[in-house]
């Protein structure tokens, strides 16, 4: 029954509105229920700081846990930076909620929500330097945010006006890749190029728990290891690949996959933005220092549906979702900020206002997004042109003109 609960605290269009251009119509409409994340009970769930295999720096209650290995990567972090992480997560979540709403209103054909994965994305995204390069899946809205990609641009492909609406080289943020796993090879090749250039930047490839089964991902592990490429494989294990739990992909924790390819793997609490920041910084430094690839498994949870076409009530329990709600990444950092007096009410109010403004801007921008010209079909098929494309474009123009003529008569 429940999908895509979001933390957006302001009013949203009511649910159940079905887009006429939904990607997978068969999935049918699903109701919605307001998630009350900020009042979720604490402490439940299976992942705790006690899990020795899991790097955690902030407990779900917002308490800072010591970690001999990774503390140094966030040692100098300032209250301002902490507030920045909070702001990033809140704005990302707000943007995401807005996009979900826009899909319900028929403005988008589909939306893949990142709800619940804000810490994994903001933590890793903020670990990057400007000259690092990112290869995302279709769900890395938070990473895009960190890279300075205008969120509005992310919506083009979900609205159906383009298949990728930004210049990857403007923000060192590659286009979204829908085909599962493919981008891990692109990231590896890019990183091989970085190494050839003698540059000291790094590359990060995002992928999911489901993607870990794809041959391409395994091949990217092999290539990156053999060439010692400066790439970080950042796996957001959100427990689900559409309807399939992680047990359908592996019978041991995913971070262990790396060792057999000759590089380290580590599992980090994916709902702990500080831990994600620290571990990713560590992995990026390894890459920049010529120590080759690293696998980071961010253990998190897809709080919403797979996409707006999906109905998770068919395959998972509400209890599971509630357990993870208690580990909410935003709430966790807020508690930490409040306990440490790193932020006051004015700050939270300001972020809230910013959220509102962002939502409004996105909403308006999407509604104003024009449909592309028909002739865009023929554009950019080739960089240097192709005789057949020219011929078909001309035929299409003549065909379209024939209506005008007919009407003219």
């Amino acid at each position, binding site marked *: 029954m429940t999908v895509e609960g979001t933390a957006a605290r302001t009013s949203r269009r009511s649910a159940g509105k079905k*887009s*006429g*251009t*939904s*990607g*997978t*119509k*068969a*999935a*049918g409409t699903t109701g919605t229920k307001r998630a009350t994340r900020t009042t979720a009970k604490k402490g439940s769930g299976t992942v705790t700081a006690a899990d020795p295999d899991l790097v955690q720096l902030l407990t779900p209650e917002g308490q800072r846990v010591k970690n001999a290995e990774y503390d140094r990567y966030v040692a100098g972090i300032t209250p301002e930076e902490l507030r920045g992480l909070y702001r990033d997560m809140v704005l990302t979540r707000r943007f995401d909620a807005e996009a979900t709403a826009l899909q319900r209103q028929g403005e988008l*054909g*589909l939306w893949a929500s990142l709800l619940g994965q804000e810490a994994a994305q903001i933590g890793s995204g903020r670990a990057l330097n400007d000259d690092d390069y990112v290869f995302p899946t*279709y769900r890395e809205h938070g990473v895009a945010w960190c890279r300075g990609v205008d969120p509005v641009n992310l919506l*083009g*492909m*979900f*609205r*159906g*006006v*383009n*298949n990728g609406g930004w210049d990857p080289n403007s923000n060192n943020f590659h286009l979204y890749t*829908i*085909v*599962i796993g493919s981008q891990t090879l692109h990231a590896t090749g890019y990183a091989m190029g970085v190494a050839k250039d003698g540059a000291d930047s790094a590359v990060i490839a995002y992928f999911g728990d*489901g*993607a870990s*089964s*794809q*041959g*391409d991902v395994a091949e990217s592990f092999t290539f990156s290891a053999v060439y010692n490429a400066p790439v970080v494989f950042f796996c957001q294990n959100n427990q689900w*690949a*559409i*309807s*399939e739990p992680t047990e*359908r*992909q592996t019978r041991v924790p995913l971070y262990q996959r790396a060792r057999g390819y000759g590089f380290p793997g580590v599992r980090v609490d994916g709902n702990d933005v500080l831990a994600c920041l620290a571990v990713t910084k560590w992995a990026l430094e390894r890459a920049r220092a010529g120590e080759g690839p690293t696998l980071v498994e961010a253990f998190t949870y897809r709080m919403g549906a797979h996409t707006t*076409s*999906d109905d998770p009530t*068919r*395959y998972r329990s509400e209890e599971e979702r509630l357990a993870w709600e208690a580990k909410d990444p935003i709430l966790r950092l807020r508690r930490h900020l409040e306990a440490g007096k790193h932020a006051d009410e004015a700050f939270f109010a300001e972020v809230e206002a910013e959220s509102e403004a962002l939502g409004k801007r996105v909403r308006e921008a999407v509604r104003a997004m024009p*449909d*592309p010209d*028909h002739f*865009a*079909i*023929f554009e950019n*098929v080739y960089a240097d042109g*192709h005789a*057949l*494309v020219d011929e*078909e474009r001309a035929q*299409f123009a003549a*065909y379209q003109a*024939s*209506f005008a003529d007919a009407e003219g008569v």
Partner: protein
Amino acid sequence: MAAEKMALAKAINESLRRALEEDPKVLIMGEDVGRLGGVFRVTDGLQKDFGESRVIDTPLAESGIVGTAIGLALRGYRPVVEIQFDGFVFPAYDQIVTQLAKMHARSLGKVKLPVVVRIPYGGGIGAVEHHSESPEALFAHVAGLKIVSPSNASDAYWMMQQAVQSDDPVIYFEPKRRYWDKGEVDVEAIPGPLHKARVVREGTDLTLAAYGPMVKLCHEVAAAAAEEGKSLEVLDLRSVSPLDFDTIQASVEKTGRLVVVHEAPVFFGSGAEIAARITERCFYHLEAPVLRVGGFHAPYPPARLEEAYLPDLDRVLDAVDRSLAY
């Protein structure tokens, strides 16, 4: 009389259910085919009723799905594999064209691979990239595979029955935008041959040939043309490999004109093969060159452009007019 009205997707579901019931060797495999029942619900309820060992949620790896299906077939099973969307079949392409297609010949007939690969295909549902492609030509060129595509619920039901029973690998292309179209299905009928085309509307002036999602469009075209006094014959080809050239030839010998319609790009598409062979067979009967209406030589466009990209009533009527103008 056991006829029942049902949606095309439901017809496939019922056909799979029957196959699972009648032959314990039949298996269903794919991503999300189990508890979820597939993203289009084509396998809805099957895991519940036949269990996890017959309706199998697989890891997210298409080559692995087809490759293990081959192994299961070697062990005597009859796997029906789902590829979630057309654009995701390519990681499995090597296993399909190099292993699935060739193992029977390689073994000099000792090994049979009764594997069905189901692929929801085609556009028109406003989806994101990779969810609207029509890659049938990329399989038809490969010997050892049989390629079919139903256009209506009854065919969807019976062609699936026949595909599962076939000892050859069958790629079963499902016209996803017609999943919700309803039609009569008589589950006690005696179906005709799987690879035979069908004249679904008789006519005398021109032949329209299509399969899968474009058959419905061709019906509409024929109806519109009829209002202008043109008599179009419509063929539902049903099978892309083999193509039933005899039925096309017979029709073209009568009408003298042929327009082939498919969603896939025209360049190197099914229409090319049909045009080439029918021109050879009917050289003295053709009053006009065989014309083709299909996709452009461009990636499938974003959803807001697909109406312009896909063959529609006007595009096909335009081709009909051009053909008749010869």
